[in-house]
């Protein structure tokens, strides 16, 4: 029983990484209508920047994360204003081509800048170690990731539900022409949302740097799971992304414990079942 509870807790920390990356993806889709294939690449850039600021320059870990968020946010701004904004009126195939192009460019860019060898800096001292939980050792770092994920959930909820900016964003998402007609600067809202989404991806990459790796191609590993989560939760639905992250993260962990041979199928089975029963996703009306 203790092992089952412990595995659930491990699954919760896995879910929080998934939540951070899928939150940004679903926000961008919900407001801009863009399926951003390069979202995983922004996750990767966040990880590399955190490595540079923390692992190479020796800045405090929190400051390094903040700077990596700002750097990736800036990259997101350039991507949206410089490229994506030019194809909003075109067929969706152009979005896919353009964002896929960014995957290739950013993968090669990190290889040129940081080289092919994976990067993994030391764990900050205050996050090293373990706490006794259910008779086992639970890593402090995993507890930190759970805390960050929950804080981000609350902050995003407050941002979209309780602030003026959140109302503007929701209005724009509901009807961009009407929003424009009543004086909302829609391009600016789009840029702001894309930057926030990019920063969420970067946060997922940055906080994992000391225990995961920054390496070319890690974005591709994350983007598939992030898409599955947004499909299960309902494209563009933030609450859905949170709940489906929990479902996928925790069930994946249990899959590893109980069905190690079939664990990989687990996440796809969940998606298939949801698509059969509720093709629009669990939380989309």
């Amino acid at each position: 029983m203790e092992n089952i509870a412990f595995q659930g807790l491990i699954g919760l920390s896995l879910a929080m990484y998934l939540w951070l990356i899928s939150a940004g993806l679903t926000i961008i889709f919900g407001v801009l209508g863009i399926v951003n294939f390069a979202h995983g690449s922004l996750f990767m850039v966040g990880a590399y920047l955190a490595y540079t600021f923390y692992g190479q320059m020796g800045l405090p870990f929190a400051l390094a994360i903040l700077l990596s968020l700002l750097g990736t946010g800036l990259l997101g701004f350039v991507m949206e204003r410089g490229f994506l904004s030019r194809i909003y009126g075109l067929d969706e195939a152009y979005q896919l081509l353009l964002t896929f192009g960014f995957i290739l460019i950013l993968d090669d860019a990190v290889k040129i800048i940081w080289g092919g060898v994976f990067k993994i800096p030391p764990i900050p001292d205050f996050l090293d170690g373990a706490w006794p939980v259910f008779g086992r050792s639970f890593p402090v770092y995993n507890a930190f990731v759970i805390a960050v994920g929950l804080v981000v959930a609350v902050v995003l909820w407050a941002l979209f539900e309780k602030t003026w900016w959140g109302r503007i964003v929701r209005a724009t998402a509901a009807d961009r022409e009407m929003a424009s007609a009543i004086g909302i600067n829609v391009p600016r809202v789009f840029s702001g949302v894309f930057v926030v989404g990019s920063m969420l991806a970067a946060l997922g990459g940055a906080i994992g740097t000391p225990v995961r790796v920054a390496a070319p191609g890690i974005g591709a590993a994350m983007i598939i799971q992030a898409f599955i989560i947004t499909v299960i939760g309902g494209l563009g639905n933030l609450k859905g992304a949170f709940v489906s992250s929990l479902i996928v993260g925790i069930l994946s962990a249990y899959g590893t414990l109980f069905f190690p041979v079939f664990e990989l199928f687990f996440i796809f089975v969940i998606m298939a079942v949801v698509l059969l029963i509720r093709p629009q996703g669990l939380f989309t009306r």
Partner: protein
Amino acid sequence: MKNKFAALSIVFPLIVFLLAAGPAQAQCQLGVPAIKVGVQGAASGPHADYGRQIEMGATMAMEEINAAGGIRGCKIEIKFMDDENKAATGVKNARLLVTDWGAHFMVGTDSSGVAMALGPVLAELKRIHFFTHAATHRLTEDLVAVKGIKEIVRVSVPVYQDAIIAALIFKDRKDIKRWANIGADYEYGYVSWNLFKETLRKYRPDVEFVGEAWAPFLTLDFSPHISAVMAQKPDAIFATPWAGEAVQLLRQSLGQGVFDNVQVWWQAMGGSVDVLEGITAEVQKDRFKGKLWATARYIHNWPDTADNKAFIERFRKRWKRFPNYSAETTYSAFFIMKAAVEKSGSLDTAKVLEGLKGMQIRNPGGVRVFRSEDQQFVYNVPAGRPMMDAKYPIPVLGDLKVFAAKDYYRHPPFTPVSVTK
């Protein structure tokens, strides 16, 4: 006067060109402008450093061979291509290298999946491929020994190193009765675990295999895998994720206090330079408590020979890094190819294969002996525990356990090994 200068400006470079190019053309005794060698490896994705190491080993071998006069007077040219660790890309590259670029030989390949897809294509292309990393036993045991694809030659030691040597080391540890596996979720991981179990059972029928977890390529978080196998209270862990994934796995296992609860952790390819670099801080602090064991297909601190030391020195001078095993095996493959071509006096595949027969060659990694039945070069690499050594800036494997190759290589005729989970 002006015309005289104009005439000289044409004639002088022409003379220089003839002096430079003429004799080299005349010296090549194999009737080709250059010997072209196509090189492949994973140069993108998380394992990109292995492809880079293949490229570095190939480049250095080419430079050294050319500086010493080439092969029978012929210079070598190489062309490196990224196989992206994908079978389809590897096959496409091979076809391009041979049919478009005109490769006489091919060298490299990291992934077992890529290697197995390449095998039948090599027979069609009629070009020898010297494999320098791909580890599945099936490449040589099935495709060469059974199916007779003679274009496959393997220079690097296969999964025997990952699995059988581990069983030989730990068979005498009576305190270890419960083994669990955190495996790479593809053929390499399955075969390693199956071979390990099969070998260990012969010596220790009392041992139990109590748990397994499988991590696919590009796993970023091993926490669920570690937690799942530790729930079975194993005495020892057998782990096959490699490169950056090995570093993550080891670091994440420290967070769950694994090294307080197990007696041994076998990290099969943990002796690779990139892994040793990645765990330097942990080894310096002795966080693995002497329980971590590893090997590789070559380790830079063994054998303790002048050849190896000189190779390391040249490699570090050229690339500012230590060579990992894919660099040494690729470098050595070029000298094996050179010896075979010089002996046969031909670039013809059948004649070069004849030239390989009976070959014993001294490489940085030691003496390699060609085994005709499966076209596998046989040499031995020890296993040991990562530890700091004042002579090196990164950990090296110490407390080395050295086994003769005949004691841990499988021998023809080969018995089947399960290649599934």
